[in-house]
């Protein structure tokens, strides 16, 4: 879902860049407050894992591929604001180092995959679901799966809105196509997210910020 240079007009690129910068400023404050020394290596290795996993495009319907994004996973593991930092690190490296995602679209890409895919998904999908579902490992993983799927699906809708506002593709064309294909890609996102979380719960449940001991029984 990395937007290249040329898809966004100035106002859309600028607005999303300002929103992302503001989000990042807040993220720095929150991470400083909430995370400790032991989280520093985790910020690094989670970024590296997401970078690596994003390279693995898997085929979905009709000559289309998709890949893991990781915003939801990072948010569930280390908290929403740490996930925004992690996604920004990954997206900046991809843009500057690997020509993946345009420099002028960097603000929008951070907005879509970090703020929507991580922060928004965490507060508005994951936490409400986690509260609503049973306080068990199964409930936790179910909430994570739905949040992961939704993170990709909603980010693709926001992306098509940006394309429409920029005058690149009318909403009635871009939105159904983007939402349709990302509804499928989101299934891959949910699978990877749940597999990683299940493994971490198995070996180091204490490392998942949102996972508490009481959930371990089932």
């Amino acid at each position: 879902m990395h937007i290249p240079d040329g898809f966004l007009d100035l106002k859309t690129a600028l607005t999303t860049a300002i929103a992302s910068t503001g989000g990042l400023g807040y993220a720095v404050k929150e991470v400083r407050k909430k995370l400790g020394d032991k989280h520093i290596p985790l910020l690094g290795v989670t970024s590296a894992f997401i970078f690596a996993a994003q390279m693995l495009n898997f085929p979905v319907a009709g000559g289309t591929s998709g890949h893991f994004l990781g915003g939801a996973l990072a948010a569930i593991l280390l908290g929403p604001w740490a996930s925004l930092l992690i996604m920004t690190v990954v997206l900046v490296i991809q843009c500057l180092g690997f020509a993946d995602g345009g420099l002028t679209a960097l603000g929008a890409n951070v907005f879509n995959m970090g703020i929507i895919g991580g922060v928004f998904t965490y507060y508005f999908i994951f936490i409400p679901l986690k509260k609503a579902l049973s306080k068990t490992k199964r409930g936790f993983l179910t909430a994570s799966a739905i949040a992961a799927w939704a993170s990709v699906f909603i980010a693709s809708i926001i992306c098509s809105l940006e394309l429409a506002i920029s005058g690149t593709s009318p909403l009635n064309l871009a939105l159904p196509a983007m939402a349709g294909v990302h509804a499928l890609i989101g299934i891959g996102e949910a699978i990877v997210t749940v597999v990683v979380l299940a493994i971490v719960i198995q070996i180091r449940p204490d490392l998942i910020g949102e996972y508490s001991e009481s959930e371990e029984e089932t």
Partner: protein
Amino acid sequence: MKKNIGGFVFISLIIALILAILISPFASPWPDGLEKVAEDKGFIKEALEEGVWKYSPIPDYAFPGVGSEVIATALAGLIGTFITITIGWLIGKFIVVK
């Protein structure tokens, strides 16, 4: 109970390296969701042929000058994974000052 974090980080890095080096050369070459939609709906031509930033050392995840596509991708994965863990770690260190 305070457990060591080193082992966990090491194993995670090994898994990331396996994905980036051994698996990524065999990833699907098909366009991703946004790219495919752009092709189908006829706005792919809006994308700039060359990006605004022209100094990417490893464009499109293929290490330049390497004949084998598999090795070029694996090298890109190896370098990218080490760069991300380093930058992520350093930014963490910079922000989390106690």
